[in-house]
């Protein structure tokens, strides 16, 4: 008889799994009290994310029906169908969904993880930050000492930690800053695009110092990093996007949501063009989302919060694998 595999047991311990269940229950109670509706949307879709830095798992569908013979993609977030619900008049909604991202594994990443995603009709990104702080503080109280939450613009964190203005800086200046920070020369960095350099400095030079002992919201990102956020006109125009960091851990990403169907299509197309330039296949853009935006998305803000990472903070664990019963290596 073959011997059983040695690693059949869960990685997360019993206390952590009970804490995880408690945090999920408290989260659901929070949204029930705020009259936000829990919804479910498909994990498997004929459309996929076009972001050149996200990789969808794909699987061919061979069964009957109109999707016969099509490639289907596991979602990397439930954002697109949730916006279709909003456009259809759902009102405020939330979802706790398993999402899937190929190529992401490490102490803070598991290729399959749990996102808490919610949308608030009539909120802008600042109002949503207030609610995110309320929920996260409630969930972490008694488990992590937290000072008052702070809000800093993307420009302020670069000025504070690296003494440069991320909206005006050149690649040459960024490369000099990378060297001054003692970060090794990274092969293949583009000389015509500041964003990868800003990402390098953020992850290697700033991130570990963000949100030490408190919730730290970073907001107003460069227009080139707006993702699905609307742009606020100005000099320069800024993406109404925010991120939340606690103890150097990136916990949530939110947007004052882009509702302009034409602008959304242009961003999808630009991302697919960027994929092509990197030798990556173009992804089928979500025409259903574009049609929903065309019909009219209510003014809203939305946020996706990495639930496993929240459990890490609450449980005092350093690795995401420690809060998941069966992480990728044992799945």
């Amino acid at each position: 008889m073959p011997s059983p595999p040695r690693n059949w047991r869960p990685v997360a311990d019993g206390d952590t799994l009970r804490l995880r269940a408690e945090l999920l229950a408290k989260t659901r109670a929070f949204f029930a009290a705020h009259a936000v509706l829990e919804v479910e949307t498909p994990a498997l879709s004929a459309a996929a994310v076009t972001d050149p830095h996200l990789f969808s798992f794909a699987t061919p569908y061979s069964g009957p029906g109109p999707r016969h013979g099509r490639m289907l993609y596991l979602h990397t977030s439930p954002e697109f169908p949730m916006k279709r619900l909003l456009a259809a008049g759902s009102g405020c909604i939330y979802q706790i969904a398993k999402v899937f991202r190929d190529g992401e594994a490490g102490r803070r990443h598991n290729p399959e993880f749990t996102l808490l995603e919610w949308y608030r009709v009539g909120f802008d990104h600042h109002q949503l930050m207030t609610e995110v702080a309320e929920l996260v503080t409630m969930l972490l109280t008694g488990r992590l000492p937290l000072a008052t939450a702070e809000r800093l613009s993307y420009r302020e964190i670069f000025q504070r930690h690296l003494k440069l203005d991320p909206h005006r800086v050149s690649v040459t200046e960024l490369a000099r800053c990378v060297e001054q920070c003692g970060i090794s020369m990274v092969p293949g960095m583009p000389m015509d695009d500041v964003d990868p350099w800003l990402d390098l400095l953020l992850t290697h030079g700033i991130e570990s110092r963000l949100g030490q002992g408190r919730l730290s919201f970073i907001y107003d990102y460069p227009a080139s990093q707006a993702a699905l956020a609307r742009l606020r006109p100005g000099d320069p125009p800024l993406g109404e996007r925010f991120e939340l960091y606690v103890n150097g851990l990136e916990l949530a990403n939110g947007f004052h949501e882009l509702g302009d169907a034409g602008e959304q299509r242009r961003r999808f197309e630009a991302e697919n063009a960027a994929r092509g330039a990197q030798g990556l296949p173009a992804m089928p853009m979500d025409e259903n989302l574009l049609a929903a935006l065309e019909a009219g998305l209510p003014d809203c803000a939305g946020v996706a919060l990495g639930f496993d990472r929240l459990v890490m903070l609450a449980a005092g664990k350093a690795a995401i694998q420690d809060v998941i019963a069966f992480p990728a290596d044992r799945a």
Partner: protein
Amino acid sequence: MATYSTNEFKSGLKIMMDGDPYAIVENEFVKPGKGQAFNRAKVRNLKTGRVIERTFKSGDSVEGADVVDVDLQYLYNDGEYWHFMDPQSYEQLTADTAAMGDSAKWLKEEAICQVTLWNGVPLSVAPPNFVVMTIVETDPGVRGDTSGGGGKPATLETGAVVRVPLFVQNGEVIKVDTRTGEYVSRVKE
């Protein structure tokens, strides 16, 4: 030689950087909320042993290094080079002073060593973890002292010097841990 994507990075993987072979010691995947992901790796230069940090864009590829570990038998030193033989194929290889590093002082003829080859040429030589050698010079100690405390230097037949307990005498055979350079025990001939 093969190339490796950052997705194949794991500790022990041998890669080429700036013309030198390196081994990955540690690999961390880092990614901002949106945008470019990186692999932040600690790598050891296999020629110098020095560990440095290097970051790669995730998904990029790196040239692999043709580095393998083989067990070879030490034959002799000709004054300039150390000669080894593959006990299976009888093929002979020579290692220079740089490859030998500190290992030379632990080698007696016929010892089986782990030799790291880069493009077929010895890059480094690791002696057996334990060696048995005769003491050729040490001060007379106190015979009754078996405590092992204190100790004294002893020169071995290969020239290596180790600290031994006071009761260990000239001409005795001892076992030494080459990883720490420490005396383990006396060996009855």
